[in-house]
């Protein structure tokens, strides 16, 4: 395959997200402007100007009209996808890290970093249908985990929130009462900070990637460990194919150590693993730095990766990918 290279960002990529139809790709980077691209040919559709810090993550509503972004400028913003105009700003006292719309797009979960004596927190916000009715009040604020919460997403039926972060523990919270329901145990769980968390298409299981050089597949309901994928580099980003039983891990040596070694030793490929057999299928090379973000098109026929090198690489699979055998 010949990947499409998108060079719209001047700083390392942080997050990638496809909309539900798979025709738009949203990219966030440490420069301050999230960008939307056409996912088929990589043409830039527009940018969302207004943040004043690195943008850590984004989510798009199911009907692709609203975008929410979380940024290090201590705010999360709601945008109109079509025009790029700001609809609302949620202000916090510390950088916003992870954002995720609930099913139905009436709620959103936003995590904030520990900052200046404040502990990290998970905020649940109500999203109004009409942006003029939008308020900044939190429905609930969950606190407890030590260190940064790198990712928090909604569990099945919006009843739970799954979070993972620097303390390497995966937690499942009750989204209504704010109570902690489950924690991953020490033996099964990750040993180092969790960098990424992705749900499967049906939400029945989710995948976490960690700096302990592994990715783990968990059951959403019971938080039991299903599979472990071991690799030889820290994992920064994970994604799952919605079409085949494939798991993709991206990462590479720490960005600060890249210049000290040969680029071939950095292992900046996106690694494909068989979801069930836990065996490596192959690697896709291309980035000049660690991969920070990965996303699979909802149709499963293409995926994109965003790297520390500032490039988004959009890969449309060759036909032979779909009948690859171990």
């Amino acid at each position, binding site marked *: 395959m010949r990947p499409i290279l998108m060079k*719209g960002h001047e700083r390392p990529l942080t997050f990638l997200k496809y909309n539900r139809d798979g025709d738009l790709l949203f990219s966030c980077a440490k420069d301050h402007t999230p960008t939307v691209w056409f996912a088929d040919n990589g043409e830039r559709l527009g940018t969302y100007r207004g943040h004043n810090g690195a943008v850590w993550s984004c989510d798009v509503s199911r009907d692709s009209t609203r975008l929410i972004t979380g940024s290090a400028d201590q705010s999360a913003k709601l945008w109109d996808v079509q025009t790029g105009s700001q609809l609302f700003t949620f202000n916090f006292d510390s950088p916003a890290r992870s954002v995720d719309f609930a099913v139905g797009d009436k709620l959103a979960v936003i995590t904030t970093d520990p900052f200046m004596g404040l502990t990290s927190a998970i905020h649940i916000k109500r999203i109004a249908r009409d942006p003029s009715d939008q308020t900044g009040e939190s429905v609930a604020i969950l606190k407890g985990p030590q260190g940064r919460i790198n990712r928090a997403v909604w569990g099945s039926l919006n009843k739970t929130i799954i979070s993972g972060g620097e303390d390497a523990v995966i937690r499942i919270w009750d989204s209504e009462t704010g109570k902690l329901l489950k924690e991953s145990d020490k033996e099964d769980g990750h040993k180092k900070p969790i960098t990424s968390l992705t749900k499967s298409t049906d939400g029945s299981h989710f995948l976490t990637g960690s700096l302990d050089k592994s990715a783990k597949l968990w059951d959403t309901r019971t938080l039991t460990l299903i599979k472990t994928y071991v690799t030889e580099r820290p994992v920064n980003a994970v994604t799952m194919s919605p079409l085949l039983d494939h798991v993709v891990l991206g990462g590479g040596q720490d960005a600060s150590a890249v210049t000290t070694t040969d680029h071939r030793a950095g292992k900046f490929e996106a690694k494909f693993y068989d979801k069930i057999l836990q065996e490596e299928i*192959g690697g896709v090379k291309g980035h000049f730095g660690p991969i920070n973000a990965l996303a699979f098109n909802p149709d499963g026929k293409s995926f994109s990766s965003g790297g520390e090198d500032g490039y988004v690489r959009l890969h449309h699979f060759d036909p032979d990918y779909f009948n*690859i055998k171990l």
Partner: protein
Amino acid sequence: MAVEAATQPSKVRWGELEEDDGEDLDFLLPPKQVIGPNENGIKKVVEYKFNDEGNKVKITTSIRIRKLANARLSKHAVERRSWPKFGDAVHEDVGSRLTMVSTEEILLERPRAAGTKPEEAKAAGDPLAQIGKGGAALMVCRTCGKKGEHWTSRCPYKDLAQPIESFIDRPPSSETTATATGATKGAYVPPSMRGGGAERVGTDMRRRNEENSVRVTNLSEDTREPDLHELFRPFGSVSRVYVAVDQKTGMSRGFGFVNFVNREDAERAINKLNGYGYDNLILRVEWAAPRSN
């Protein structure tokens, strides 16, 4: 595509044109016209621009639009396709080239070359296996020490052993101990003080390297030991194949060694394969230089 040239010469002076590359003059041009697509799916785009000589040029581009049978797009996705650009994308220069198709063909690289497994099985079934049957003592794995089971290059415990990166540059005995002790102390250990295991490895290696060793250089990066084995097997029984691999990257360093059981076979292989085109490179095959120590 049809180009109808030079409808009228430009009235602007050439000096100005040179300076701002004609880009600011675009407002003088008639706007872009899009006609169609008609019932045959043919769309016409009429554009005007200044060519290098400053002449106004009309460019008519005819595009046939075909519907892809397989493309399933939602109504909303089709609608989004025609959304106007916003933000920074509005003022995008033509030359900025934010989106490029990679010039490089990227493949999903398999950890094993496809078909490696069956090939290995075949190789084991051929002359090597016969030698193994003839004298099990000949087939000693230097990695794990098992006799008559497998060759060193196919040792299943290879990964557990100390890696042997190169064996022509440095004497192997010192190297293996250096890696072994380097991890613990990092200080130099004189040969007499080293563990017995290392000494045994050293003598073993000297024995295997001195006879009928053929050095193969200018190998392509993709060449692996089974490939070399396949290449050299027709000349006679091969006792060992080794491809030097970069320890850090796991890539081939472009040279390797093949040991033959019989010297005549090795000679024939050198005569035949030196200068042989293999995987887009020309192989150089020669007797391995005897080691200095």
